[in-house]
């Protein structure tokens, strides 16, 4: 197995109700708990943000990401391949509120 990063992207800054938050928490814990050892880490990113343009780029290069999309967190999991990792992500409750991008963490040759 190798490590995969599930990048969580929000397009709408939803305001959740207390009931929705509790439901969301349960769903997440059920999903993560079900993954057992395949779940490595998961974090939310805080709102403060700083962006640096690449050295030498000019201001009309535009935003680096679609300005509407905000990366709000990530989950790191172990899986046998991208298909399995994607399947795991598909079953997650994160999809209710976010877009997900699944990327393998590059394996460096020894």
């Amino acid at each position: 197995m190798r490590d995969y990063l599930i990048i969580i992207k929000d397009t709408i800054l939803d305001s959740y109700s207390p009931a929705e938050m509790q439901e969301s928490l349960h769903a997440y814990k059920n999903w993560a708990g079900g993954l057992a050892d395949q779940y490595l880490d998961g974090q939310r990113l805080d709102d403060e943000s700083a962006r640096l343009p690449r050295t030498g780029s000019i201001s009309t290069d535009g935003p680096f990401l679609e300005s509407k999309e905000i990366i709000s967190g990530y989950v790191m999991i172990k899986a046998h391949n991208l298909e399995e990792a994607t399947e795991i992500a598909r079953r997650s409750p994160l999809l209710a509120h976010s877009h997900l991008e699944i990327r393998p963490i590059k394996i460096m040759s020894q």
Partner: protein
Amino acid sequence: MSGSEDKQVQQLVDHLFRHEAGKLVSVISRIFGIAHLDLAEDLVQDTLMEALHRWSVHDIPDNPAAWLMQVAKRKTLNELKRRQTALKNQPHIVHQQISVESIDEAFLESKIEDSQLRMVFVCCHPKLPLESQIALTLKSLCGFSVKEVASALLTTTSNINKRLYRAKARFRDLKIDLEIPPVHLLPPRVDAVCLSLYLLFNEGYQSSHSQDLIRKDLGMEAIRLATLLSNAFPDQTKVAALLALMFLHTARFDARQDVEGAIVILEDQDRSRWDQRLIATGMHYLKRASTGKVLSEYHLEAGIAADHCLAPSMEATDWKSISAQYDLLNRMNHSPIIAFNQAIILRWTEGPKQALAKLEELQASAKLKNYHLLLAGIGEMQFLLGQYQKARACFLKAKALTNSNPQQELLNRKILACEMANN
């Protein structure tokens, strides 16, 4: 997050976030004043988000409510510091009398119920339009979002936002704030709260299985708040009577509808599906209400509900007792709806012919002109007397007067029964 496979996934108590949200909004509003209700709600929202993020990746604490309180308190203290810093640069503005000590005190376990009570009295203030009272109660005391309130009350978020906005404007204009009414004003203020909670309960009671679950929660919230009030003022027997009423009605909720959400009328209900524990609780409150000198409409409505709940069948129901209570109700409040209910009972005490006569008399009442149940009642009596074509016509008219799908569905069944009987 530890990787132990056998670890049971931790659960939170049902509605914990919602109920704690209500509590926390009450406490923080007590500290900053009702004019800063939005601020209180923001701080609570931040607290819950923090819990959501932290408890997703770490273990849920043993005492989640206490954790939420601590974090909310910290955020409140930070907000106070922020304001004091801001005000330092504007010495001509009088500092609000909030201290760290007052924050410590407001967050004490023993003071939390007091804050919630104040919130109940403010949300159900008689100077607010009833619609605003209910919207405000659901939003600020019960932890519903605007969208959830709109969904629960079968209206739009725009409508709810308007009601909330108007309520907050009233607070400012009338200088209403969070306080327990003085003893001499308590009875009318308690009355106002009872009315508000009664209406809230009624909204939930009208809901059907096919609707959002959130509607069913309304009844539970009304009971929860009435219980809070009753515990604080055990001598206010009206509240106990209201609680009795709410428990007795809730006891029959599941039997009132079949699996598809179609209405099952009282005489067809499977009484074994009535919740006996809820009936017992209702009777307990009715007993408590039956002390003192006050006899209110809630007492009578609860008494009637009790007579139904304790009866093994329609035929074995104590109609005499029910009839007497309706008589008293009618004397308290000449409502054509009460007269209508009395007429319906005649079917069981005397017979369909007498009931029909009474019901037809009521058609003259202006208030009942568009009351679909009156026409349905007349149709029902005509059906029992074999007047199938007349009955069918009445049921059709009744159908045109109601928007409720379950009600229309019930009337369709009645119309079909008329058509089959006629052949």
